[in-house]
């Protein structure tokens, strides 16, 4: 997918909490600009980036939303565009953290494959210091400049596409390498604060999917102690993480080798592997619940994950190549059961 023919473009410099006026305006559409934006679009791979849905007013007949409304009006040129773009610049300034450096807010409108639709790209490129080497009178001169870096890891983008009606531009593809940051104010700045959107995979759905995939992988790796230990480590680590966004792919990459990753990834549809979500701990614990150990003497120990490898809980140690389980706790209840 390419960006599509450039129709119009706007750029503004925005500093945190800055009030209007903003420096910038509409940029002339030239082949060089089209080419530069096209390459930035291609390299960013935003067309395959995670998807978000705008948190629209569900009672409004037009599905009103500040960013979506502005995007539709800018893309289809139905209202004075500069006022709308400056409105988005003000929104960005408000969402930016005081510690942030100024950013370049860029917006470009492109043709979409469907004639009735338009494509709108929103970018923020952070200001960074760069060197500029020049030759003057045969002598090199090195200057330190402030420039907006289009390859920065701190850049953000949103790709909206659709017709100018109730179904248009309800969702966006979002590029934000900080959305998985543990600091929520950093992670939420672009998607939650500025775009006022939610990841398309809800935390509930993601947590259920993750638990189901882990359980399926655990069952399928029966007899493979290494793979099962990796899965247990992943479960333990995910239970301790707070606020970080994960995808099924990221869990596999971070915690699992091939033997555990293959059944884990095989338990979800390929379309579901990249979607990001936050693990809901209570739900995750409820869905994962217990780890079951069968010991060499026939004793079966079923332990809640919360009680494994914590003081006073079940302790697993490795001695001479065998894994051993230790537990010392008061019996509160016992049942006589058939061995089913």
């Amino acid at each position, binding site marked *: 997918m390419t960006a599509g023919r450039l129709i119009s473009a706007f750029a503004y410099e925005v500093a945190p909490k800055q009030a209007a006026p903003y420096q910038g305006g509409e940029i002339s559409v030239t082949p060089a600009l089209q080419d530069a934006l096209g390459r930035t679009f291609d390299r960013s791979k935003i067309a395959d980036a995670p998807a978000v849905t705008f948190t629209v007013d569900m009672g409004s007949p037009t*599905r009103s939303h500040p960013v979506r409304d502005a995007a539709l009006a800018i893309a289809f040129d139905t209202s004075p565009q500069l006022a709308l773009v400056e409105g988005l610049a003000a929104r960005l300034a408000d969402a930016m953290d005081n510690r942030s450096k100024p950013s370049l807010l860029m917006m470009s409108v492109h043709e979409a494959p469907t004639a009735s639709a338009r494509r709108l790209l929103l970018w923020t490129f952070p200001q960074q210091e760069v060197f500029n080497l020049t030759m003057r009178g045969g002598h090199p001169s090195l200057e330190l400049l402030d420039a907006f870096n289009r390859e920065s890891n701190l850049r953000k983008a949103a790709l909206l596409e659709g017709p100018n009606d109730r179904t248009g531009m309800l969702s966006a593809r979002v590029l934000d390498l900080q959305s998985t940051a543990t600091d929520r104010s950093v992670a939420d700045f672009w998607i939650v604060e500025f775009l006022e959107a939610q990841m398309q995979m809800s935390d*509930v759905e993601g947590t259920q999917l993750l638990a189901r995939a882990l359980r399926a992988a655990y069952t399928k790796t029966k007899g493979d102690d290494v793979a099962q230990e990796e899965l247990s480590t992943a479960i333990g680590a995910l239970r301790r993480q707070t606020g970080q966004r994960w995808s099924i792919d990221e869990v596999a990459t971070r915690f699992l080798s091939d033997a555990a990753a293959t059944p884990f990834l095989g338990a979800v549809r390929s379309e579901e592997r990249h979607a990001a979500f936050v693990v809901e701990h209570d739900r995750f614990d409820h869905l994962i619940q217990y780890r079951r150990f069968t010991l060499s003497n026939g004793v079966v120990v079923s332990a809640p994950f919360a009680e494994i490898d914590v003081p006073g809980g079940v302790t697993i140690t490795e001695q001479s190549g065998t894994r051993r389980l230790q537990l010392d706790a008061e019996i509160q209840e016992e049942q006589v059961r058939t061995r089913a």
Partner: protein
Amino acid sequence: MPNADATLRVEFNARRPLLQQLAATLEEKTREALEGVSHIDRIGFRVKDTESFMTKAGDPKYTSPLTQIEDQVAGRVITFFRDDIQIVRDQITSYFRGVEHEVKEPENATEFGYESDHYIFVIAEHWKPEGWAEESEMPVTVELQIRTLFMHAWAEPQHDIGYKANVDRITQRELAWIAASAWGADHKLNELADRFAGQDSD
């Protein structure tokens, strides 16, 4: 425009397999979203039948019916009691990304008729079956209705009868009476459920 209609019919029929796959995924997701919720009579999703789609597409307000008609894939959750509707709303909206919610009921307090919750949800990228992206003008939203057994008991048969031509006054009165009876039964059943809530069942 007979030619345009024929083309639209062909295009809609060609995408039905993709819509059916989406309907199956959504049904599975809805069941997952409502796991552990009591008093659910049934959950189902369907793809709009071609004749019904073509009739709706004939409305001039739809300039791009393949995208703009939002109930091409639609689902329904039917609960036992009225109070369960709020529980279902909470679960569903924490799972799906909604863009519209309307509580449908007669405007006039002295009227009895159709009652149901209608939601419009965005089709998440990760629910779209393989091949979806290769098609143009695919729908971006789906509809979900939430209602009680008694709301449904009135709505479905009356949809069949009430939309027929030449419904005379006495038939209309009878339908209104059935709606009022269903409304009364629905409220009374909810009261009984409230009264016995928390009591152990044998």
